[in-house]
């Protein structure tokens, strides 16, 4: 009996609290509209405006993977963004302040990090995320808050479109990227193998990462479409060390080339152990940008291997950028996507420069106008090439290089310059 009384007591309490909470919630909304967020100008777009008082800096944020196993990917990009802000100088006579958050390369991290960013109503736009998995929920939060979000390294097709005019599930208005869509790299690798190497049977391996799985699948589909045959599509797990059994299967499948767009250290195990398997040698193996690093190309067994990856920026502007990077951080850029993030940041600042209006010393940025301007970007010259956005936010200059690591190349930069084939999708 006693238990029952307590139960009712608690039930009543809960109900009462729900009422209180609802009342409080209502209260807050009213206050929010009146007080905390910026007052909406009647002329402003549906997403509201950001108003920056005289003398105050413009706030943008970065959401990159800066801790854990993929920390180097994000750190590289944050540094590039910092350089971009410095290079761009003042916007409408104001300095630019960067708030740096961590996406942890995971959906939870993307959510928490983006929540931190949107908590400040003065933030205009975000450069990020590093990882597509984090990008999916983050872009949704950013979109709902009216922010513009430009990623320098998300490549998953799901975030934008299938490149044939259909938006994919995770596409959110306000999202764009300066990195290429995986579909392009898959297409490039497939065309090179089928047309240039004239091979018709391939095997693919991914490691369960959304990026590698997406790329392996895209490559496989493109290859089948060209008329080739994917004789084995398989996978390993992160943390696996003994690749010999799976390589035995690859050898047995009769594949003429193995495409494994995965990361280190699993990729190291594959090339090192492949020499123990009859019928496999480096000339029949191809990986992607995930392994384009000094430690990988210096593995003796990786000699003669092929790689697919976004065309590396070149030219004096890029050299200048690398110089600044080296001076500021004491090492050369450590990953593949710094230039993309540099371009993303520069693009964002340019848009703010174009859209922002000075009204009696107050800088007013209309969020919707900013978003529209983003999707209208055309012929923007960045380090990675000419950036033109489609309506689903794919902005990258879609050049993909196929590289080879031969006996002559020793460092990653030399490999990057040994371009066998450059792919540009025909419109």
């Amino acid at each position: 009996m006693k238990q029952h009384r307590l139960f009712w007591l608690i039930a009543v309490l809960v109900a009462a609290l729900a009422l209180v909470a609802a009342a409080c919630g209502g209260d807050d909304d009213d206050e929010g509209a009146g007080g905390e967020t910026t007052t909406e100008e009647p002329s402003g777009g549906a997403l509201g405006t950001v108003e920056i008082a005289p003398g105050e800096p413009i706030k943008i944020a970065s959401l990159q993977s800066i801790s854990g196993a993929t920390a180097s990917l994000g750190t590289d990009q944050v540094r590039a963004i910092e350089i971009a802000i410095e290079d761009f100088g003042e916007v409408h006579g104001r300095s630019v302040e960067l708030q740096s958050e961590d996406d942890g390369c995971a959906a939870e991290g993307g959510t928490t990090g983006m929540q931190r960013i949107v908590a400040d109503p003065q933030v205009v736009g975000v450069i990020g995320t590093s990882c597509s998995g984090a990008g999916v929920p983050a872009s949704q939060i950013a979109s709902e808050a009216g922010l513009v979000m430009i990623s320098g390294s998300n490549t998953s097709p799901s975030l934008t479109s299938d490149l044939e005019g259909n938006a994919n599930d995770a596409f959110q208005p306000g999202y764009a990227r300066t990195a290429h869509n995986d579909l392009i790299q898959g297409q490039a690798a497939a065309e090179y193998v089928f047309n240039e190497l004239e091979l018709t049977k391939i095997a693919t391996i991914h490691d369960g990462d959304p990026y590698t799985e997406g790329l392996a699948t895209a490559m496989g589909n493109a290859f089948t479409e060209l008329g080739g045959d994917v004789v084995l599509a398989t996978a390993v797990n992160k943390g696996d060390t003994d690749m010999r059994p799976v390589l035995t299967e690859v050898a047995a499948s009769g594949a003429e080339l193995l495409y494994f767009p995965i990361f280190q250290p699993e990729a190291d195990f594959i090339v090192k152990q492949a020499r123990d398997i009859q019928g496999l040698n480096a000339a029949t193996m191809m990986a992607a940008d995930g392994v384009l690093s000094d430690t990988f190309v210096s593995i003796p067994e990786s000699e003669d291997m092929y790689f697919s990856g976004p065309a590396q920026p070149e030219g004096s502007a890029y050299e200048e950028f690398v110089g600044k990077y080296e001076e500021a951080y004491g090492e050369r850029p450590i990953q593949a996507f710094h230039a993309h993030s540099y371009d993303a940041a520069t693009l964002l600042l340019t848009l703010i420069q174009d859209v922002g209006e000075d009204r009696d010393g107050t800088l007013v940025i209309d969020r919707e106008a900013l978003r529209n301007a983003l999707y209208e970007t055309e012929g923007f010259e960045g380090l990675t090439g000419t950036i033109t956005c489609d309506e689903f936010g794919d902005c990258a200059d879609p050049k993909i290089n196929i590289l080879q690591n031969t006996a002559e190349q020793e460092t990653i930069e030399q490999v990057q310059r040994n371009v066998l084939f450059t792919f540009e999708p025909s419109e």
Partner: protein
Amino acid sequence: MSDYGAALRRRGLELFSFTGGFLWAVRIAAVVVVIWGAVGSLTEGRLTFDQWKNLVVFGLAQGSVYALIALGYTMVYGVLRFINFAHGEVFMSGAMIGFFAARELNQHGLWSDRPVLGILIVLLVCMTTSTTVALIVERVAYRPLRQRPRLILLITAIGASFVLQYAFRGLFGAGVKSYPSIEALQGSWRILGFNVIKTQGVVILIAFGMMALLYTFVERTRTGRAMRAVAEDQETAELMGINVDRTIVTVFAVGGAMAGVAGLLWGLVFQQVFFFTGFLPGIKAFASAVLGGIGNIPGAMLGGLVLGQTESLGPSLVLSGLGVPSAHQLKDVIAFLVLVLVLVFRPTGLLGERVAEERA
């Protein structure tokens, strides 16, 4: 099996009860699936006979590393009746410090010029490191808790495992460290119709040698007898004049040394080590020890070898035969399912005695 049957009856768990029926269904299903898959795979003729034989050798090499690590789990369990969860990290510590030694030797040319000497030196370094780490963990984390419930010890061990992992990460960095390779161990031998990669051959050789040595030590020496006595009954052993404390320390030291050997073999076979290296092999070795019957030294060896074969042959033999895509992704699923199935068939493991049933 009869023991198990007796246990079932004693506990009133009849064949036709819900759980009994469920377990039998699981057993029958497992056997059917395995046979179906294997027949499918073999008749398909995807792999040649030579390739099947290669898979067996790969599994043997991987399994003997598991077995070496499993020895440490099983010995500690035999004496203290708890799982030293941090043992995987003891193994990693040996492999990690061994890397620095190997790198140094390689710079002085010793690693490739005189591989036998080089390996011996690194082996010594690995064993010393792992033994030291095992002893420190015993002293700091376990000894104060010896009389506490075993759950407390197990949780402490999980804590120790975290501390070791992230201490090594902090000290030596998160990057993957690559062992230099040894020229003399490139290529392969042809033994009894099997194509054996030289490094794997060496690994199998050393592992079996070490296990034989350990078995002799435990069965034949005075210290070994003391260990068995302590395992059997601590109080009686103490009354018989055995120094229990010292015996337990010896057990940790010997287990650590075996893990150190495994660390070196890991370096030779996979040539890579980083702070997380110990985790997965540690769990696999833990599974091996349980699979073979925990507390039982030959059991740990058998468990390791069975697990190695399962991982190597399982995906190709069973899953591919069933037409499962990306079979090798499910390697660990098979490994753990085998563990569950063995325990369902034999709750005390392959060679386990009644001990586990009574005291566990």
